[in-house]
């Protein structure tokens, strides 16, 4: 994922519903960050966590991670539509399909990627905001940025199979809330200033 490149065209959203494992249902969310002030959008696909929170909180053990690290849609016979995963996922990925009483999520187009093809979204994305390939290829193609796959949510550190491209110069993966408060920061003051400068 390279949000800096996203143009909000929704080719990924439209192509997601063409994926043979969940035809007719798009499992990508593409959102404006704040349309009144910017056209910036971010496509949110599942990052396929190494230790998926969705699976950890599932009381029915319905969410499986394949041997090659793909976190699947809930198993129909097991899913009890309790919404635990929807609430727990720090990235907001799982969606409850109330018609099927089934949690559905991106499975990295398992029908395609398990046989060496690319996922639909990353195939069609015209701006390269979603891209599928190897670390060596992306390093060569995108010298301005670097991939990260470690995200911090409070005390929880999450590592993911899908990587996000961030600018080289940004040293941290998270911002501590106290940096923005009128008290001694525990986070990285410098980075925060940069972010705020960009905003204004």
């Amino acid at each position, binding site marked *: 994922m390279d949000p800096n490149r996203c143009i*909000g*065209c929704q*080719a990924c959203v439209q192509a997601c519903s063409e994926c*043979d494992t969940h035809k007719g249902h798009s499992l990508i969310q593409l959102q404006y960050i704040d349309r*009144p*002030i910017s056209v*910036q959008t971010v496509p949110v696909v599942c990052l396929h966590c190494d230790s998926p929170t969705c699976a950890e909180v599932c009381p029915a053990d319905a969410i499986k991670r394949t041997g090659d690290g793909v976190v699947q849609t809930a198993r129909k016979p097991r899913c009890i539509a309790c919404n635990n995963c929807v609430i727990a996922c720090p990235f907001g990925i799982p969606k409850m399909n109330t018609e099927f009483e089934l949690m559905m999520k991106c499975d990295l187009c398992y029908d395609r990627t398990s046989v060496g093809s*690319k996922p639909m979204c990353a*195939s069609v994305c*015209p701006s390269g905001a979603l891209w599928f390939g190897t670390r060596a290829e992306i390093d060569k193609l995108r010298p301005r940025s670097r991939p990260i796959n470690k995200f911090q949510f409070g005390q929880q550190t999450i590592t993911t199979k899908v990587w996000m491209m961030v600018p080289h110069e940004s040293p941290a993966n998270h911002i501590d809330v106290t940096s923005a408060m009128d008290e001694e920061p525990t986070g990285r003051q410098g980075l925060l200033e940069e972010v705020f400068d960009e905003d204004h």
Partner: protein
Amino acid sequence: MSTLPSDPKTLIDAYGPHLAFMSGERVDTGTEPEKLVKTHCCFCGQQCGIQLKVKGNEVIGFEPWYDFPFNKGMLCPKGVKRYLQGSHPDRLLKALRRDPSSPTGFSEMRYDEAIARISGEINRIQTEYGNDAFALLSGASLTTEKTYLMGKFARMCLRTRYIDYNGRLCMVSAGAGNKKAFGIDRAANPWSDIQNAEVVWISGSNVAECAPITTNYVWQARENGAKIVVVDPRITPIARTANLYLPVKPGRDIALFHGILHLMIENDWLDHDFIENHTVGFDAVAANVREWTPKRTAEVTGISESSIRQAAELWGRARTSYLMHARGIEHSSHGVQNVLGAINIVLASGRIGRPNCGYGTITGQANGQGGREHGQKAEQLPGMRDIDDPEHRAYIASVWGMNPDDLPHAGVDAYEIFRKIDRGEIKGLLSICFNPKVSLPDSGLVARALDKLEFYVAIDFFLNETAFHADVVLPGSLQEEDEGVVTQIEGRVIKINKAVDCPGETREDWRIIQDIAAGVGRPQGFTFTSPREIFDELRVASKGYIADYSGITYEKIERQYGVCWPCPSDDHPGTPRLFEPGSWNPIAKGAGPFYFPDGRARFNVTTYTPPTEDVDDEYPVILTTGRVVSQFLSGTQTRRIGPLVEQYPEPRLEMHPRLAEKYGFRDGEPVIVESRRDSITLRAQIVKTIRPDTVFVPYHWAGKQSINRLTISAQDPISKIPEYKACAVRLKKESVAGSG
């Protein structure tokens, strides 16, 4: 009289637009297609490669075509969902005749009866009022074979001078400017030259929404270190992360180019060798921009002086660059001047005709390039020949086997055709691949003119809003139901391959035209049995002149993933990059790389004039129009594809909060927008991404949502392109409309 046979609501209820969604085998998991057909998207000028999944004579989905080099599998949302236009409930499967007594306004008729009726009416009108009383309007989404046939049909069969096409709303300013400066009308460089340019300059192009795949080329250039300059009244997605964003006031682009050239000269950021050896006219252009100081440029363009200086320095100091422009500068009553201004700063830099030194205009329609080369344009014969040039007339007449004296001379542009209908000079009309009631400006005139026609026949696969007026409608073919070539954004000729057969009584468009030629009693020259036969004649007709296709074959296209014209012989690989040092062309004959007898490019003196209708106290806000990514042109296809309509369901009136505050408008509130022509009501979208003196509305919708009811029919004097990008409007709250 080609008035509406019924009220618009009845027509829409019967003929659409209705929305198609995935259903049946298109949504079933595990459906195996019978075949995958490698072809191209039916929408914009980029012509992305795509594979269509076919089962049971239906396109049931798509598969990315990773090997096609231009897009490598990438698609925009329109390309992804384009297959839903097939097997659509609105599809016309039979010929229709106007029938006010029918509950839908039309009745079905037999195809042969329709051809007989049409032929009879054409003969009657031409006998009674003269050949020029019957006009043709064609389109640039057709294959090149079809566009060639349309031009031939007008000139050879109907012998009318009045044919023009919807590229008149699209590529004509770019085309005219390119011909004046370079002697040829084609993007000068392949898109791969964008990726390693030091500076990418984008003027008047919402690349991300109108040419989405081009975004990846621009982003790749940035990865490689390029600086991106975007000139636009709105911060579009391509402008958001640009190194330099210049918020030009709509209609003032030429002033910016004057200001940039002024600073290039002042700072000696010029390629003197190139100017000296490969151009003429620099001194006059230099004198012309002397008074365009940064201060004056800033005053006229509404861009800050410091930004103008930064832009000039970025452009001036670059060693390699790519300049692109699109309708933003071309849709203007001085569109050709804007294009020439852009070319002047390219020529002064000397950065053209070399790797990573490029210039290109971004084609809008699928065959926006090929559709303007081979003779459906009012003033043109095949190969980009001139219809009023005696030698050109003689050559084409010899190919067609007719007396050159019988070839009609230049006609008039598409809008002027409607003015002539309005004045009673043209009595009959045939249209194909064109929906002028939605796409032409000041469309009230178009509706009025259509009502005055004695006979109007429309060929289309859906009953578009213009075709509502038709006396007879013939069911034409979708892109995937026929084969032929188109020429994409880079000048690359590529091949559309047939995926499914025409359903019901629909016919390939070229067969329909030939059936009419036979019907009017002049079938000579219209007895082709395949697109390949038409293409082979087109190759001969284009031979020896600028747009030379003579060395292109269907097989060579398949083998090479397309062939860039000019391609003058069988062993020629095509010409991806124009104007390379030492290159040969049929005009310069070795004298130089540009298409003039001396081989030199032309600097052209350009003049700044404000838009025809500038703002004033009465109409104080600038209206500009454009596209959204999920819709295409007049929406005949895309307003029928459910997932695309859901993505952006209705046109919004985009405005800056500062403007909204002045009137007290809130986001989402209905606002009346009114010009001197008409008014419509749209919901406000209040965003900081547009100039506070300008409102923006996309133009894809019909009826009460059609912004072209308000736009002005002012046209460029040379190219005749309409001024869609700037007219004056006023705004008011819907609630006070009655009292005001």
